[in-house]
């Protein structure tokens, strides 16, 4: 989280004839080696294995046994059987990302421009809830949104809820996703706003007078790198999440994460389909990310 907050780009040192990066390939290789090995062995290799599994076929009559194959039918089956789950995953994650943005922006804005000496304290407040296990917090939402909870009773008093429930509905799931990944949205936006020069925004205020126009034409574009990073950091984990659905959502109408989890851990012989689902999910997300990255450059994100 502080990864993105701490990112401050430095201007390249002035002067035409100065070169700072060293060209010692051997030393660089030694420094990179442990990390590359670890990521290769425990990130790339497992993904490859997962890919292989996604193309395996079952031994007929022996649940839980597969043989190596190039069974692309797994993908077709995964996509046709679980298309609604994909739709829900991306839909709920997209909505949660949107709501998180709406909530995060004023907070990040206040931290960057209004907080003054309270800035440090607000920063701690944003990060602090992380230190309570996120499952405990998600479970707390199931209490807050329960039929006996004050939220539902308040809304029902005014007859604002069509079904008189929130818990075990998609609304609760989206609320949970929004809540869980909100700090991931706040911190990068705050970082990019803080980097932006407050005087530029004031100058914008002088030019346009209207507060909203200033915001739309000056403030928002300047914080765009943070907004993009925040969107990704919220959307990606939200699209793959299954805990919120499990604790807050309905029994039927699950997300892709739940299917993958169940197929892997509870359904015998579910590996190939689950692997195909995982790969499709990852591919879809990576395509989205790369569209972003291609438009806005990696340096701000990485």
């Amino acid at each position, binding site marked *: 989280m502080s990864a993105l907050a701490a990112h401050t780009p430095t201007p390249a*040192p002035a*002067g*035409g*004839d*100065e*070169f700072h990066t060293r060209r010692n390939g051997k030393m660089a290789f030694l420094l990179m080696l442990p990390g590359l090995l670890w990521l290769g062995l425990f990130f790339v290799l497992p993904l490859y294995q997962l890919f292989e599994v996604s193309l395996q076929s079952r031994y007929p009559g022996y649940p839980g046994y597969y043989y190596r194959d190039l069974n692309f039918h797994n993908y077709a089956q995964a996509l046709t059987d679980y298309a609604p789950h994909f739709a829900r995953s991306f839909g709920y994650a997209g909505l949660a990302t949107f709501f998180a943005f709406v909530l995060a922006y004023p907070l990040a804005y206040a931290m960057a421009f209004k907080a003054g000496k309270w800035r440090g304290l607000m920063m701690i407040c944003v990060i602090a809830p992380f230190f309570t296990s996120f499952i405990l917090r998600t479970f707390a939402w199931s209490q807050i949104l329960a039929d006996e909870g004050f939220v539902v009773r308040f809304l029902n008093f005014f007859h604002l809820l069509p079904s008189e429930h929130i818990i075990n509905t998609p609304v609760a799931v989206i609320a949970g996703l929004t809540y869980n990944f909100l700090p991931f949205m706040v911190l990068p936006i705050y970082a990019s706003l803080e980097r932006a020069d407050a005087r530029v925004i004031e100058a914008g205020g002088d030019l346009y007078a209207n507060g909203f126009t200033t915001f739309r034409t000056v403030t928002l574009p300047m914080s765009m790198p943070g907004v993009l990073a925040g969107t990704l950091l919220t959307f990606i984990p939200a699209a793959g999440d299954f805990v919120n659905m499990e604790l807050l959502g309905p029994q039927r109408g699950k997300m892709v994460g739940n299917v993958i989890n169940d197929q892997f851990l509870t359904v015998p012989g579910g590996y190939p389909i689950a692997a195909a689902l995982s790969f499709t999910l990852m591919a879809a997300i990576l395509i989205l990310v790369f569209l972003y990255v291609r438009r806005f450059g990696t340096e701000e994100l990485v």
Partner: protein
Amino acid sequence: MAGFRGAQGNLRLENVTKEFTDFLAVDDLSLEVPRGSFFALLGPSGCGKTTTLRMVAGLEQPTTGRVFIGDTDLTGSRPYERPVNTVFQSYALFPHLTIRENVAFGPKRRKQKDALKLADEALELVQMTQFAGRKPAQLSGGQQQRVACARALVNHPEVLLLDEPLGALDLKLRREMQVELKRIQTEVGLTFVHVTHDQEEAMTMADTVAVMNQGRIEQMGPPEVLYDLPKTKFVANFVGQSNMGEGKITGTDGDFLVAEVYGSTVRIRKDRTTVQSGNLVFGVRPEKVKVSRNKPEGIGNDVRGIVKDVSFIGVATSYLLEMPSGTTWSVYEQNLDLDRIDLKPGDEAWMIWDAGHAFGVEIEGEQS
């Protein structure tokens, strides 16, 4: 190893070349800096002066060529093995250490027992004793600069390198520090190699100035010689201002060459030109020129122009005149005459000078 650190004598670069992947930073450069002198490397940014400095420090290695101090060949040795210290442009003070610890850093690495005492002495030399306990971030730019000097000087290096050390200071402070650095140099008697793009700074401080351009030394010598008799068009323009015009040598007249410039006949002493025949660039410094309303009597050394601008600066009056060829000459005339010449823009005027002040250099591009 200890051999490098014990090196003593003149700093000498022999045919040093530094190539980066995409360009040639330093091109076959040779020079010798006498021990104990104040030497300035002057040039525009990108001319290779900083790269030269970094090769002396050991922060870069030359592609070919050798670096010596006295008889010791330092080529290939690491920065920490050389009896050379640097004052960096950005000062590069250690932000996590106090001022005293910063200065004591070098002596401590060399395992000197009284490192802190040496640091205090060095701080005294730069008048920073009262700030010894502070962190660099709590000092102003000028104060950090002094600390950077103390941190290098405390090691009594054989050669002290200064990489545009005054670049980040405002004008007033810069002038003060120039005097201060010169004082320190005289006091400690070390070899100073100072890199700068400010010709005034180079000339006021250095015993010898080398003007660098595109990886080569264009001219090297005492500041007054460099100013009085530039050897190339680049030096004539970079060190001070010059009025210049292209011309053609038409003959000789005793010790003088006669040339045709802007339709006028001018004379140049034979020992003040690098070209003896053919085309040349004729030059004369603005303060060596006088303006006059009328064509003076005599044997040339005058050019006619149109006054473009007159500005009164108090001690002097500066004129800008457009030459027949379209180029602009400037004249810097001290206000010695009781009755000033009343010239206005648009007036026609003559510029006159003593033939002994003129110089001639090659037209660029015709150099071999």
